[in-house]
C-alpha cells in the first residue's frame, strides 16, 4: 500500500533549512528502503486532486528523476531499477499516472504527461506497455471526454513520440497516433486549447512520423494541415505551427520541393505582417533551410557527386525574393537593442539569416545586397545607415575574397569615418563590421589582408580613439582589435607590424577594463580577453619586455581585488568576475613567457609571488575564480617544472576542492587537467599526493552527479599519473583497471544513432586508450607483468574499436599507439594473444595508408614493436 508522504514533500520545500534537510533525509530513507513503494506513493500523491499543488509538483519531479537522467550510466541504472520493480506495482503506478491526465489541475496533467513518456521510453521498446497507446487514443476518440483530458492526452502523445522510435510500434499504431494528433489540429472539431496542444504534439512527433512523411499522400495531408494551422486566428497556434514548419525544414528538407511555393508565401506574409513571435519563426524557417544546404555543401565532395542526399537549391531559387524580404527586416531595429546582448528581434534574426544566406550562395548575394547598402548608408535616418552597415557586415562570410576585397577596400575608409557617426547604433554596428572584416579578410599569415602596412596606423588610430566611446561601442571595438591582432599570429615578418603599437594598445585596453561606466562586467571582460589575444599573438622576440612589464601590473591588480570590501553577495560576485579576468590574463602571460628559454626566467622569478596571489584568490572562494585560477596554475606548473613541488602543500587542498566540485563540473574538469599538468611538472615528486588525488578521481568517476563530460579526461589523467609515478601506480591498478574495463564495455554498447553520443563515445575511447598508454609506459621498465592480466581485455577493446566505422581519427591514433605500447611494455607476454588476434594486421595496414603523417609514424612504430614481440 502507498504511504502518505504529503507532509515530507511539503517540508522538503520549506524555507527553513533544518526542516528541509530533515524532510529530504526522510524521503531518501524511504526511497532507499523501499523503492517500489516510494514510487507508488509519489504517483498516488500526484494523482490526488485533493493534495496541495506544491506536494504534487515535487512528487512529479521526483518521479520523473527516478526514471531519467542526463548521464548515460545513471540513466541505465534507473532503467534497470524500474524494470526490477514488481509488475503489479508498476501497473498501479501507470494507472495513477493515466488517471492524472484527467485531473482538473493543469500542472498535474502536464507532469503526468512527462512521467508517462519516461516510462514509455523504457517499456514500449521492450513491449511491456502495449495498452498505453490504446488507452491514450481512447481518450481522444470519445466525444464526451473533457477538452482538458484531450489536451493532456495530446501532450502525452507528443512526448511519447519524442521518446520512442516509430519502429517500436506497429505501423497501424503509428498511423493511429498521428491521425489522432493531426485531427486534434482540426478547426471544426476542437477548441483552441486542444488545437494548440495538438500542434505542439505534432512538433514533438515529427521525427516519429518518418514513415508517414515518406508517403506522399500522408505527407501532403500533414503539410496541408500544418499550413492551414499556420493561418489560425490564435497567435499562439500560428507560432506553434511555424515551429513545426521550422522542424520540418530540418528533418524533411529533401521532400519539401512541392510545398516551397506555398511555404514562401506563408513565411513571407508572416515576416511582413504577423506578430513578432510568428515572424521570428518564419525567418527561422529560412535560416534552417540555410543550415541544411550549408551542411550539404560541406559534405559534398567532388568524387562522390551522386551519393549524398539531393541539394534542392531552395535558397538560390528564392534568392531574388528572399533578400529584399530580409533586408526589409533590418530596418525594424529597436531603439536600445545594442545595450543588451540577449535581445532577439526581427532585425537581429533577419541579419543573422542574411549571414547564413551569404554562406549558402556565396558571391550571388553581393549584387543583391550592395545596392541596398549603397543607397541607405548615406541617408539621414540612422535606421537606414545602421541597416546598410549591418547588411554589409552580415555578408562578409561566404562570398569569395576576390569579390569582397575590392568592396571592403573601397569602403574601409568610409567605415573608419563612420566611427564618428552621430548615432550610437550606427557606430556599434560599424565597429562590429570592422571586426568581421578583420576576422575574415585580414590574414597576413596567409599573405592576405585588406589592411596594408601603411594604413595600419590609421586603423589603429581610429580603434584606439573609438574604444573611449560608449560602452557598447567600446565592446565592439575590442572585438575589432581582437581579430586584428589574431591576424598577425604566426605571420612571420608581418607579425612585427603590430609590435610598435603594442604598448599603446595594451594601455588602452587596460584603461577600458578599468572603466566604471560599463554597467556590468561585459566591457571589462571583452577588454581583458582582447588583451589576452594581443599578448598571445604578439611577436615574442620583439615584445617580451613589454609583456614582462605587464606582468607586475596585472599581479598588482589581482592583489587589489583582495581589498575590495565585500558587503553583499553582489560584491562577492563582482570580485569573483574581476579575479577571473585577471587570472585569465596571468594564464596567457605565463604561457607566453614560458614558451621561450629567454623569457622563461621572468616567470620563474615571479613564480612565488604569482602563486601566493592564486592561493589568496582561492581563499576568497568563488567558483568562477577557482576555475580561472586553476587554469593559470596549470600554466604555472608547466613553467616551473619540478620547482612546483614547493607549492603543493599549500595548494593541495584547493586541488582537492576542485576535484570535488560536482555542481560546477567545468571547475572539476579543469582541475582534472591541472592534475595532469602537475604530474608532468613534478614527475615522481607528485607521489605523496597521489593517494588523495586518486581517491577523489575514482569517486568522481563513480559519481552519477558529475557531468559526464568530465569523465573521459579523468581516464587520461590516470595515464598522466601512471606516467609520472611509474611502478608506484601498482596499488591503484585493482581499482582503476576494472573501471577502465567497465567504461570500455559501455563504449561497446553505446547508442550509435545520436551524434552527440557518438562524439562522446569517441572521446571516451580515446581517453581510455590514453590511460592504458600511460599505465603501460609507466610500468614498462620496472613491472610490466602487472599489466599482463589486463592485456587480453585491452586487445579485444582495440579490436572492437578497429571495427567501428564511426571512430574518428584521434581514436584511431590512440588505438594504434596503445597497441604499440602493449607490445613495447609486455613483450613476449602477449605474443600468443597477438598471434590469435587476426585483426591488427589489417588495422595497421589501414593506418599505414593514412594521409596523416603522425598516424603513419605511430602505426610504423607499433608495427615495429609487434614484430619485435613476434620474433622473440
Amino acid at each position: 500500500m502507498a504511504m502518505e508522504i504529503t507532509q515530507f514533500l511539503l517540508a522538503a520545500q520549506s524555507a527553513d533549512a533544518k526542516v528541509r534537510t530533515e524532510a529530504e533525509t526522510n524521503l531518501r530513507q524511504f526511497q532507499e528502503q523501499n523503492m517500489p513503494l516510494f514510487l507508488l506513493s509519489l504517483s498516488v500523491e500526484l494523482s490526488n486532486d485533493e493534495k496541495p499543488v506544491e506536494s504534487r509538483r515535487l512528487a512529479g519531479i521526483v518521479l520523473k528523476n527516478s526514471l531519467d537522467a542526463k548521464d548515460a550510466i545513471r540513466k541505465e541504472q534507473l532503467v534497470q531499477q524500474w524494470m526490477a520493480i514488481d509488475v503489479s506495482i508498476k501497473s498501479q503506478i501507470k494507472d495513477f499516472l493515466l488517471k492524472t491526465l484527467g485531473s482538473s489541475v493543469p500542472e498535474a496533467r502536464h507532469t503526468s504527461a512527462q512521467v508517462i513518456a519516461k516510462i514509455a521510453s523504457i517499456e514500449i521498446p521492450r513491449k511491456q506497455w502495449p495498452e498505453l497507446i490504446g488507452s491514450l487514443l481512447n481518450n481522444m476518440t470519445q466525444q464526451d471526454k473533457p477538452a482538458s483530458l484531450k489536451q493532456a492526452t495530446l501532450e502525452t502523445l507528443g512526448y511519447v513520440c519524442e521518446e520512442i522510435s516509430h519502429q517500436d510500434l506497429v505501423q497501424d499504431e503509428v498511423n493511429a497516433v498521428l491521425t489522432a494528433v493531426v485531427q486534434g489540429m482540426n478547426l471544426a472539431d476542437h477548441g483552441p486549447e486542444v488545437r494548440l496542444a495538438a500542434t505542439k504534439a505534432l512538433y514533438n512527433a515529427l521525427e516519429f512520423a518518418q514513415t508517414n512523411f515518406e508517403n506522399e499522400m500522408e505527407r501532403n495531408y500533414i503539410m496541408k494541415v500544418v499550413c492551414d494551422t499556420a493561418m489560425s486566428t490564435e497567435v499562439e497556434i500560428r507560432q506553434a505551427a511555424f515551429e513545426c514548419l521550422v522542424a520540418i525544414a530540418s528533418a524533411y528538407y529533401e521532400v519539401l520541393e512541392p510545398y516551397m511555393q506555398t511555404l514562401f508565401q506563408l513565411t513571407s506574409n508572416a515576416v511582413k505582417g504577423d506578430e513578432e513571435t510568428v515572424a521570428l519563426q518564419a525567418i527561422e524557417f529560412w535560416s534552417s533551410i540555410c543550415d541544411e544546404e550549408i551542411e550539404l555543401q560541406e559534405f559534398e565532395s567532388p568524387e562522390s557527386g551522386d551519393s549524398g542526399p539531393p541539394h534542392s537549391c531552395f535558397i538560390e531559387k528564392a534568392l531574388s525574393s528572399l533578400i529584399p524580404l530580409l533586408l526589409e527586416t533590418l530596418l525594424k531595429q529597436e531603439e536600445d537593442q545594442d545595450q543588451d546582448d540577449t535581445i532577439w528581434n526581427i532585425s537581429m534574426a533577419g541579419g543573422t539569416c542574411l549571414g547564413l544566406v551569404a554562406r549558402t550562395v556565396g558571391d550571388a548575394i553581393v549584387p543583391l545586397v550592395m545596392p541596398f547598402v549603397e543607397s541607405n548608408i548615406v541617408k539621414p535616418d540612422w535606421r537606414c545607415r545602421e541597416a546598410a552597415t549591418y547588411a554589409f557586415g552580415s555578408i562578409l562570410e561566404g562570398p569569395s575574397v576576390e569579390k569582397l576585397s575590392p568592396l571592403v577596400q573601397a569602403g574601409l575608409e568610409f567605415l573608419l569615418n563612420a566611427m564618428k557617426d552621430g548615432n550610437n547604433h550606427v557606430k556599434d554596428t560599424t565597429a562590429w563590421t570592422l571586426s568581421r572584416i578583420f576576422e575574415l579578410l585580414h590574414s597576413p599569415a596567409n599573405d592576405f589582408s585588406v589592411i596594408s602596412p601603411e594604413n595600419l596606423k590609421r586603423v589603429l588610430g581610429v580603434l584606439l580613439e573609438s574604444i573611449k566611446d560608449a560602452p557598447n561601442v567600446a565592446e565592439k571595438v575590442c572585438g575589432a582589435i581582437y581579430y586584428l591582432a589574431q591576424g598577425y599570429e604566426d605571420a612571420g615578418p608581418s607579425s612585427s607590424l603590430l609590435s610598435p603599437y603594442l604598448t599603446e594598445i595594451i594601455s588602452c585596453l587596460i584603461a577600458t577594463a578599468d572603466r566604471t561606466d560599463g554597467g556590468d562586467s561585459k566591457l571589462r571582460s571583452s577588454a581583458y580577453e582582447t588583451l589576452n589575444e594581443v599578448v598571445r599573438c604578439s611577436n615574442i622576440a620583439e615584445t617580451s619586455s613589454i609583456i614582462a612589464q605587464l606582468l607586475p601590473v596585472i599581479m598588482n591588480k589581482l592583489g587589489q581585488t583582495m581589498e575590495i570590501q565585500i558587503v553583499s553577495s553582489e560584491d562577492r560576485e563582482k570580485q569573483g568576475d574581476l579575479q577571473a579576468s585577471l587570472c585569465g590574463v596571468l594564464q596567457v602571460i605565463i604561457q607566453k613567457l614560458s614558451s621561450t628559454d629567454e623569457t622563461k626566467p621572468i616567470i620563474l622569478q615571479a613564480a612565488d609571488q604569482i602563486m601566493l596571489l592564486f592561493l589568496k584568490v582561492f581563499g576568497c572562494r568563488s567558483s568562477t575564480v577557482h576555475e580561472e585560477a586553476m587554469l593559470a596554475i596549470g600554466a604555472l606548473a608547466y613553467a616551473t617544472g619540478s620547482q612546483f613541488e614547493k607549492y603543493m602543500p599549500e595548494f593541495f587542498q584547493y586541488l582537492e576542492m576542485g576535484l570535488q566540485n560536482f555542481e560546477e563540473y567545468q571547475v572539476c574538469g579543469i582541475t582534472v587537467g591541472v592534475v595532469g599538468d602537475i604530474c608532468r611538472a613534478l614527475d615522481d615528486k607528485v607521489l605523496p599526493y597521489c593517494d588523495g588525488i586518486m581517491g577523489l578521481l575514482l569517486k568522481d568517476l563513480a559519481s552519477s552527479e558529475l557531468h559526464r563530460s568530465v569523465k573521459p579526461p579523468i581516464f587520461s589523467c590516470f595515464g598522466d599519473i601512471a606516467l609520472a609515478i611509474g611502478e608506484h601506480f601498482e596499488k591503484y591498478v585493482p581499482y582503476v583497471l576494472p573501471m577502465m574495463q567497465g567504461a570500455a564495455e559501455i563504449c561497446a554498447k553505446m547508442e550509435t544513432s545520436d551524434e552527440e553520443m557518438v562524439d562522446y563515445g569517441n572521446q571516451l575511447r580515446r581517453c581510455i586508450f590514453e590511460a592504458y598508454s600511460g599505465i603501460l609506459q609507466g610500468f614498462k621498465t620496472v613491472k610490466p607483468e602487472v599489466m599482463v592480466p589486463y592485456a587480453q581485455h585491452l586487445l579485444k577493446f582495440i579490436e572492437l574499436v578497429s571495427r567501428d566505422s564511426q571512430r574518428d581519427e584521434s581514436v584511431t591514433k590512440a588505438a594504434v599507439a596503445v597497441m604499440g605500447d602493449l607490445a613495447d611494455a609486455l613483450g613476449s607476454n602477449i605474443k600468443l594473444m597477438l598471434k590469435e588476434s587476426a585483426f591488427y594486421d589489417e588495422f595497421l595496414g589501414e593506418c599505414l595508408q593514412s594521409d596523416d603523417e603522425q598516424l603513419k609514424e605511430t602505426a610504423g612504430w607499433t608495427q615495429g614493436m609487434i614484430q619485435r614481440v613476434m620474433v622473440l
Partner: protein
Amino acid sequence: MADDSSTSHRRDPIKSSVGNVAAQRRRQNAVTVGKERRESLVRAKRLCRVGATGDGDVPVEENDMITDEAGFLLDTQTSSAVEELKSAVAYQGKGAMQKRVNTLRQLRRLLSKSEFPPVEAALKAGAIPLLVQCLSFGSPDEQLLEAAWCLTNIAAGKPEETKALMPALPLLIAHLGEKSSLPVAEQCAWALGNVAGEGEELRNVLLSQGALPPLARMMLPNKGSTVRTAAWALSNLIKGPDPKAATELIKVDGVLDAILRHLRKVDEELATEVAWVVVYLSALSNFATGVLVKSDVLQLLVERLATSNSLQLLIPVLRSLGNLVAADSHTISTVLVPGHEITDGVIKVLVKCLKSDHRVLKKEASWVLSNIAAGSIEHKQLIYSSEAVPLLLRLLSTAPFDIRKEVAYVLGNLCVAPTAGEGKPNLIEEHLASLVQRGCLSGFIDLVRSADIEAARLGLQFTELVLRGVPNGDGPKLVEQEDGIDAMEIYQFHENEDLRNMANGLVDKYFGEDYGIDE
C-alpha cells in the same frame, strides 16, 4: 524532451560581442595545450631508447615539442648536430672536451627522441667516423659513454644502418675491457648486443674480432645491471647457427660458475637474461649441454620454475630445461632417474606449467614431458601415475592445435615401450587401455583429420596401437565409434604415400570384408 518551458527556436545572433566567445576559446586553448603536452611526453617515452645507464636527464619535452613536422625537423637538427660535432672534434682550444661532450649529448638526445630515430640523417652527415674518433683511447669517460650511446641508438636502426657501425666495432670491443669504467663498458656491450642481434654476418665479424671473451668476463662479477646487459649481448652473440660461439663461451673460465650464481639470485630480470644464455647454449652446443647437465643447473632451473610467476623468466627457463632433456640422453638416463628427488621436482614444475594460463608454457611443458616420456619404462610409469595425465587428457580435447600435438606425443609415448630396432613398437597395454578408456582416442582421431602431416601420422600411429592393442579386440569397435573409419578414409587417395598406405592398410586389416560379421 521539451523540459517544461518549451523554448522556441533561438539561435545566436550573428552580431555578438567578443568577450564570451574569446574566453571560451582561451580556456579551450589552455586545455588543448595540456593535451599536446601529454601527447608529446608519451611520444617521447615511446620513442626514446633509453640507454643502460641510469642517466637521469631522459630527454623529454622541455621546450621542444614534437610536432607534425617532427621527422623533417629532427633530420635537420641531427644533421646540424653532426656538423657541430665535427667542429667540436676539430676544436682544440679551451673547454674542448666539454664542448665535445655537449655536442655528443645533443646528438644522443636527438637519436633517442623518436620512434624513428634520425639514424639515416646522422649517417648521411658522417656521424660514424666522428663517433669512432670520440671513442679513441684515453678519452674521458663521459665522452666515451655518450659516443657509445649514440652508436647504440644507431645500431638499433635498420640492418644497413647497423652495418654502418663496422668501423666502430674494434673500439667498442676494446672498451669492454677491465680498464674501462662500468658505465662505459656496459654501454659498449649494449651497442654490441644490438649489432649482434642484427644477423649471422655481423655476429661472425664480432666473434672474429674477439668480442666474446670480454663480454663473457663481464658476466663474472656481481654487478646486476652489467651482468644483465652482458648476458643479453651474449645471448645475441651466440645465437648461431654455428655452435662454435656457444662452445667457446662455456669454456671461458668462470662462466659456468657465474651462470649458476646468477640463477640463484632473487633478481628475476637478471635471471631472465642469464636463462636466455642457457637457452642458446643448450640449443646449439652439445659440448655446452654436456657441461651444463653435469652441473647444478638442472636443479636451479627446476627451483626457478617452481618459485617464479614471471612469464618473462619462466619461458627461457622452461625452454632451457627442455633443451637439456632433449639434447642429452645423459640427462634422462643418469640425472632424471625415477626415484631421485630432482625427477619428482621436474614433474611437479611441469605440471605447474601445464596448469598455467599461458599457452607458451603449456606447449613447452608438453614438449619437455614428451621427451621424458620417450625414456625408460620407469619414466613412463612415473609420468603415467603423476598429476600430469588428467591435465594432458583435458588439453588433448580442449587446447589449441599446437599444444594438442605436443600433448599427443606425450600420451603416445606413454603407451609404447622403448624399442631397440625398427618395426612396430611394443605396447604398454595397461597404459593404453586406461588412457583410451579415459577418452583420449577422439583427440587422436581429430589429429588424423589434421592437415599437418606430422600430426596426422601421430594420430594414425596411435589408432594403430588401439586397433592392435586394446584388450579383448575391442579396438576396432572403439575406433569406429569415434568415426575413425571416416577419418582414415580421407587418406584413400591422399598424395602422401606413406600416410595413404598406413591408413589404407589399417582400414583393410581391421575393417575389411569380415568386419562386423561377428555381431
